[in-house]
């Protein structure tokens, strides 16, 4: 009896061990594995063409975060926004379905390389870091990094030089963090741009540096940050879409951008979501 229990225990532990390794004995997962394996052979056969991989599985998985006006949900839970609508149109042009998956922004490169998503299309600033870890498209939208301050202090900080003594909060790994470094100011990296605003609002930091497109939606009348305002614009930068390194979808999307800019559909979308002032000619 003792031996029987020991054996059963050993068997179950073996199962839990393989589960640790990422597989499992359940049929559903075995199926998933076979499918994934099949997909891989397919990808390998075509020398890792991302286009064939996406066409093979019949859908383009787009990694997004909730970010008005680029990607956000409408009342019935469907993804809309300038980026979301454009992504849907791009998928349609490839003849595949589009699937939006909300990701943790810090993990975007892992999501891409781990193939849980096929592209990052979410108002992503083209920083050196992004460009070195992804295959990025041409820029399609202008953006800038701007300084957020409490309203009552804003008058004292009108230019770059006056900012040096402030303690900043910035999103970890964001373009705002690069700007804070460049300023030579003291700063705290926090989890998101929204958290950076909370730092300023609660007084734990003096100021924040965030995207101007985002600041327009998040600060001022009708938000929880009525006491905050934005002042100095620190730089000009651009948004792009990121694919896996070496992906052939990047070229495909550049072409799509050019076509839809030419026929006016891109401009029309930009008007719908009020970002046409920031749109870049393709």
């Amino acid at each position, binding site marked *: 009896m003792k031996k029987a229990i020991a054996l059963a225990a050993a068997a179950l532990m073996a199962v839990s061990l393989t589960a640790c390794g990422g597989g499992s004995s359940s049929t559903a997962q075995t199926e998933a594995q076979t499918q994934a394996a099949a997909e891989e052979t397919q990808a390998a056969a075509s020398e890792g063409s991302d286009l064939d991989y996406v066409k093979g599985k019949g859908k383009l998985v787009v990694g997004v975060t909730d970010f008005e006006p680029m990607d956000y949900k409408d009342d019935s839970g469907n993804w809309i926004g300038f980026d979301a609508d454009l992504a849907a149109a791009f998928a349609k042009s490839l003849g595949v379905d589009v699937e939006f998956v*909300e990701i943790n922004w810090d993990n975007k490169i892992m999501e891409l390389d781990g193939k*849980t998503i096929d592209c990052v299309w979410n108002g992503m600033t083209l920083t050196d870091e992004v460009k070195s870890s992804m295959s990025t498209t041409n820029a399609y939208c202008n953006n800038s990094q701007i300084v957020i301050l409490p309203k009552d202090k804003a008058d004292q900080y009108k230019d770059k030089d006056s900012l040096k003594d402030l303690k900043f909060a910035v999103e970890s790994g964001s373009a705002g963090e690069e700007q804070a470094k460049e300023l030579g100011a003291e700063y705290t990296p926090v989890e998101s741009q929204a958290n950076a605003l909370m730092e300023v609002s609660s007084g734990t930091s003096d100021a924040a540096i965030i995207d101007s497109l985002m600041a327009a939606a998040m600060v001022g009348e009708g938000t929880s940050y009525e006491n905050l305002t934005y002042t100095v614009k620190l730089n000009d930068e651009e948004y792009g879409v990121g694919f896996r390194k070496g992906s052939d979808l990047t070229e495909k999307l550049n072409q799509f951008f050019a076509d839809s800019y030419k026929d006016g559909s891109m401009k029309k979308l930009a008007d719908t979501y009020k970002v046409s002032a920031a749109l870049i000619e393709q």
Partner: protein
Amino acid sequence: MDKFLEQLPIVFGALNIGFLQTLKLFFVTLIGAFPLGLVIAFGSMSRFKPISYIAKVIVWIIRGTPLMIQLLILYYFPGLVFHQAIWGGGENGRFTAAAISFIINYSCYFSEIYRGGIQSVPKGQEEAGLVLGMTRSQIFRHVTLLQMIKNILPPISNEILTLVKDTSLARIIALQEIIWAGQSFMKGSHGISGAIWPLFFTALYYLIWNGIMTVLLGKLEKKLEYFR
């Protein structure tokens, strides 16, 4: 204030959906971890040395590393290291990966609690059972088990309350539980942007749920009180 009243139903709706996900993870973890913990406990108490070593090493690794890292490894490693994204990118895959991580993690903690509970039953009872001609499994089922359950209830209750709150760790792999839902209003979601209060409001959900859990577990403890 008008603004707040206008936002309240929208926020409630979104937080409820998030909290359902939290509860789903909570229950699936308990259902999986209770039995698996017992298996690991038997493993670590096994007199067959290799099995007890394996069980102890597993418990050491799982209890010795952060659950957050375990979530990241389980979800991303299949795609990153083995180039097979077995979980897929969708919500279901994320949930499955999170549930398996939580089950493995919590069963290791449970196993140690079980072991303590089993070993707290006096050895004399086992010897008495053997003298009466009972098999070891009969002794476990008829003599040890209930006493063990009574002994482990307080520490297990502790783990259950911790689990309710630990589910929020799953947001690292973008499982949209209630904190994720609350935080999304800071950036903008459902037409509300720049709102901080929903994030802090989520604490009420945990508080109420843990209140219910505390009452239920207290009742269970009372029921087992005659048994001493």
